[in-house]
């Protein structure tokens, strides 16, 4: 049994895949805690889709694809904040306008090419087994920068997320940190992009943090538990993918969703039992 479980990791590409997923889990859990509790799920999806523009530009110009995705996601994050402030439209409207424009621009560029290349498709659907050593280095640098930023500004992020009025009254640069949160989501998306793909990346922000929130009620514990759930889903999903020969990112996301449903079931059942017992 142990051998069967460890078998996939005799391959270097599987080791790299696991390392990539550890990075995705850590970043997704930490940022996901904010995403879930600030109702920014749509932002995560939008920023993921917007990276298509950057990916397409990088492909067309022969530039670095991850860098292209990062620039596109950060630009979209700032664009969402800016559109909302200037146009005085609701958050989801600002997101809807900005990301659709970016995504359409990506499609436009791609349509100029004669065929979809497998490389381009790997960003859309994820290619965990194709993660290279340089991809890992890039993702590690981004993940480290993100974690240092969160640790350095944790109190400010918490104040702004919980009570922006009080935060401003206590001279926190509230607007700056509201933008910073969008940029953090953008960075998390890019860290996960190559491994999970544009279409499914948002799941790694939402599902583990949502699962954690069923069980714990303080931001640091939500973050920790979310990282744990994300890693669990990654390891199980990767095993399933290897042995059943199915797409890894889909297997991981489905595992995460199954863990969420299972946890929800257990939590509902214990609460109901508690109510019945106290009645």
């Amino acid at each position, binding site marked *: 049994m142990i051998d069967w479980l460890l078998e996939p990791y005799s391959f270097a590409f599987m080791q790299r895949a696991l390392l990539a997923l550890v990075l995705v889990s850590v970043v997704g859990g930490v940022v996901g*805690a904010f995403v879930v*509790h*600030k109702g920014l799920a749509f932002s995560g999806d939008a920023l993921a889709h917007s990276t298509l523009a950057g990916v397409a530009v990088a492909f067309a110009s022969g530039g670095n694809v991850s860098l292209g995705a990062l620039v596109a996601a950060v630009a979209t994050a700032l664009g969402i904040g800016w559109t909302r402030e200037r146009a005085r439209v609701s958050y989801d409207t600002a997101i809807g306008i900005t990301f659709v424009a970016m995504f359409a621009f990506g499609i436009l560029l791609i349509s100029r090419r004669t065929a979809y290349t497998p490389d381009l498709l790997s960003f859309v659907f994820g290619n965990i087994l194709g993660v290279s050593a340089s991809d890992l280095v890039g993702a590690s640098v981004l993940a480290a920068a993100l974690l240092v930023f969160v*640790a*350095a*500004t*944790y*109190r*400010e992020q*918490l*104040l702004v*997320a*919980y*009570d922006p*009025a*009080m*935060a*401003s*009254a*206590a*001279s*926190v*640069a509230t607007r700056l940190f509201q933008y910073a949160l969008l940029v953090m989501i953008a960075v998390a998306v890019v860290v996960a992009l190559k491994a999970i793909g544009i279409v499914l990346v948002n799941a790694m922000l939402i599902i583990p943090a949502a699962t954690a*929130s069923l069980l*714990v*009620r*303080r*931001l640091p*514990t*939500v973050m920790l538990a979310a990282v744990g759930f994300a890693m669990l889903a990654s390891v199980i999903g990767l095993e399933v993918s290897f042995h059943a020969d199915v797409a890894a990112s889909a297997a991981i996301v489905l595992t995460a969703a199954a863990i969420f449903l299972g946890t929800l079931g257990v939590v509902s059942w214990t609460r109901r039992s508690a109510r019945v017992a106290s009645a």
Partner: protein
Amino acid sequence: MARDALTAPSGHVPAREPLAPQHPHAAYALEVRGLTAGYDGAPPAIEGITFRVPVGELMGLIGPNGAGKSTLFKSIMGLLHPTAGEALAFGRPVREARAEIAYMPQIEEVDWAFPVSVFDVVVMGRYRGFRPFGRWTAADREAAMAAIERVGLVPFAKRHAGALSGGQRRRVLMARSIARGARLLLLDEPFAGLDAGVQHDLLEVLDGLAHEGRSVLIATHDLSCVASSCDEAVCLNRRIIAAGPTAEVLTERVLAETFQRHLLAIPSVGDLIRVATDEHVPAEGRDEP
């Protein structure tokens, strides 16, 4: 001003030693001068607001819903940009004196679903500015626990703040304002939905703060707590209707003008005056366990 005060608030003894002013403005915790503010495309919500909060006093800011009490607080704190006028705290512009001011918004403005404990919320009051990798110190934690104790929420300190009732949430935010250790507290509707006993206890807490030389401005539409506990009162309905010592301000004429309707004054048990208005407390906020 008409001198037909309904009753002088007795029972409350304003026995505070006046603080020695080191500065011409130091006698005033807050000076609001000609403040006008509002929201885009609408007439100003408040206009030409001028009044002063003396150091070491409890002052009630009275007005019906929609009178501009919250708008006034927000423009004092610089959360809304006033179109005219200014606010000085301890003789300095408010933005330079933020460490000296605690602001308690209405509970509806806070994201109660966010995963924070009561303690987490209260200790936020200790925030003193950005330090990279800043953490709460032992002194911050002690101040937060002391404030939680003052508002009577010790058994709830580790609970998820969102699991508390409306009245308890108000006490959490009040504890956060107290924990700040500020010399000026601006409290927006701190008593709505609290039962009389809790309200009385919290007024005693605020009275204690005033005795320590702190100044408290309480926005409320509850006249009885102002009449019984505040040294001074300001009546607001887009403009200042009257300001001054509570007994002089709370006259039938001023209140009728403030609330824009005829008020019925009911002398009741003790020296408390009760004034019936159409104001109602949202049912959501009154579920004190």
